[in-house]
């Protein structure tokens, strides 16, 4: 408990405030959003500009899109998609990757060979290309994207965690536990896993942003979150046909939201890295 309070006191204010705020917005989206994100606003036109521009109105603060839907409401609901996919995708990738890394590093021999060769092969596929393939295979839906991104990004964890386990395996407390007759499973649970958690956490904090951008990219290409669900990447895709007409608010605002959330996770990750693992400072 004291450690938690201490950590909270030291935590960087700006990224925590941004992430906390966004989470609150995502959870309370139904209460905060002024309009239904999937339906046209009554009385509004299509392509109404933001309120400070000529022709804008205060009922739709950030303007309306090609169907006359409220951009602000869609942004608010979109936070939900980005946060869920970012967190869950990272959790899936981290879970698979940590398990594979421990298996590979601790069991060794042919298990290690198999896992590492698959890791090499999958890392040689450009991540986004791989994700597009998997996404077209399983079809567009938010939860499918979570698993697609988990399946694409676990390899990075596996490599790093394996390296850690290889040195841990030779440490005395592990050797002693083995001599004392502890089973492999027990050694992994009691001695290996707790010692790689810091690294896994740091990697996770740095992966969230990558996963959020990947989700936006997939949705932008039409293989991610399906319409009419409000997702930031999808909003960018819907804005593209009319980009030349100068309706800038449809392109600028969703992108700024992605930028904000990724920036906050990066800052938070940097802080976490310095705090948890001095050796990773230059990663």
């Amino acid at each position, binding site marked *: 408990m004291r450690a938690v309070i201490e950590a909270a006191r030291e935590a960087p204010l700006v990224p925590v405030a941004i992430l906390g705020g966004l989470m609150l917005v995502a959870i309370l989206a139904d209460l905060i959003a002024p309009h239904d994100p999937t339906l046209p606003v009554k009385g509004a036109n299509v392509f109404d500009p933001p309120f400070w521009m000529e022709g804008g109105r205060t009922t739709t603060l950030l303007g309306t899109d090609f169907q006359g839907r409220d951009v602000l409401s869609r942004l608010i609901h979109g936070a939900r998609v980005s946060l869920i996919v970012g967190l869950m995708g990272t959790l899936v990738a981290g879970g698979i990757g940590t398990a594979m890394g421990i298996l590979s590093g601790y069991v060794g021999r042919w298990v290690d060979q198999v896992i590492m*060769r*698959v890791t*090499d*092969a*999958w890392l*040689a*596929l*450009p*991540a*986004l*290309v791989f994700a*597009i*393939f*998997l996404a*077209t*295979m399983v079809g567009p839906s938010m939860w499918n994207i979570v698993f697609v991104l988990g399946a694409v990004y676990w390899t990075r964890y596996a490599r790093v965690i394996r390296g850690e386990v290889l040195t841990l395996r030779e440490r005395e407390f592990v050797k002693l536990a083995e001599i004392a007759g502890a089973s492999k499973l027990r050694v992994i649970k009691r001695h290996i896993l707790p010692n790689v958690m810091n690294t896994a956490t740091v990697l996770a904090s740095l992966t969230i*942003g990558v996963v959020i*951008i990947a989700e*936006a*990219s997939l949705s*932008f*290409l039409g293989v991610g979150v399906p319409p009419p669900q409000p997702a930031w990447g999808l909003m*960018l895709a819907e*804005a*593209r046909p009319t*980009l*030349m007409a*100068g309706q*800038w608010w449809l*392109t*600028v605002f*969703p*992108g700024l939201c*992605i*930028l904000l959330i*990724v*920036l906050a996770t*990066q*800052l938070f990750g940097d802080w976490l890295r310095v705090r948890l693992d001095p050796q990773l400072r*230059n990663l």
Partner: protein
Amino acid sequence: MWQFIVRRLLYSIVTLLILSATIFVIVRLTGDPVSLLAEAGARPEDLERIHRQWGLDRSWPVQYVSFLQNIVTGELGKSFNYRLPVSELYFQRLPNSLTLGLVATLISILVGVPAGIISAVKVNTWWDTIAKGVALLGLSIPGFWLGLVLILVFSVWLRWLPTSGAGDWRHVVMPSLALGWYFAASMLRLTRSSMLEVLGSEYIKLARLKGLPDVVVIAMHAFKNALIPVFTLAGVNMVVMVNAAVIIEVIFAWPGIGRLLYEGIFNRDFPLVQGVVVMAGFMIVGINLIVDILYAFIDPRIRLTR
């Protein structure tokens, strides 16, 4: 040393085999390409005939072996859609992707390296703070969104640059900026940390003790060593950029291999997709192999581990 090279070479071949098998299975799980062609009233016999014509009636192992044979002969099979050898389509598009990758790499070096050096030499000053801020923004701005904003500013508002397609140098500016931006940030970070490490080392301290001027120490002694990892990364990044520019090529309608692949995925053009991905795999595995061997050559310790 020879043992190391042979082992690495074998690993690379295994890696490519797993990669080819992965992609072979995944494209087949995306669905039946014939059903995309067939109109509502197509007779089953016709579908059957196309299946046979494309060799899709054979079992998967047989198809996989013929896929491997096509790789060995270098033809990479025949595209369903274009009815041309995949290798022909690929090498038609490759120069465009190389142009884009090369310009983006140059941008990332020209931005990342000087900024990284300044940031390291003037560590903990406001120069450093600005550079770190730029790096952070670089890693946080999605490249494809940057592309859209560039179109908005330079094509729609200022009318300086064409929105899409390929032609003269003006077509290259925006896509390569959007592509190179992220990599510029990673170059900056690596240059900075690499310079800081070298600047703190014994031989630099000695050079300073000898009374050499700062400029000489940084330019002659630190620079050279600090840039080995940086230029390695630049080389690897370039290969990645050539092969992973799908979304940028789609936005700017750039006729490179990324868009070829993108269209192939949606048309379920199995030979085309497999061919392009395997070529990407060859390049990426190849550059990693070269880097590994070069590093082992420079640093014997690497040869002995693993």
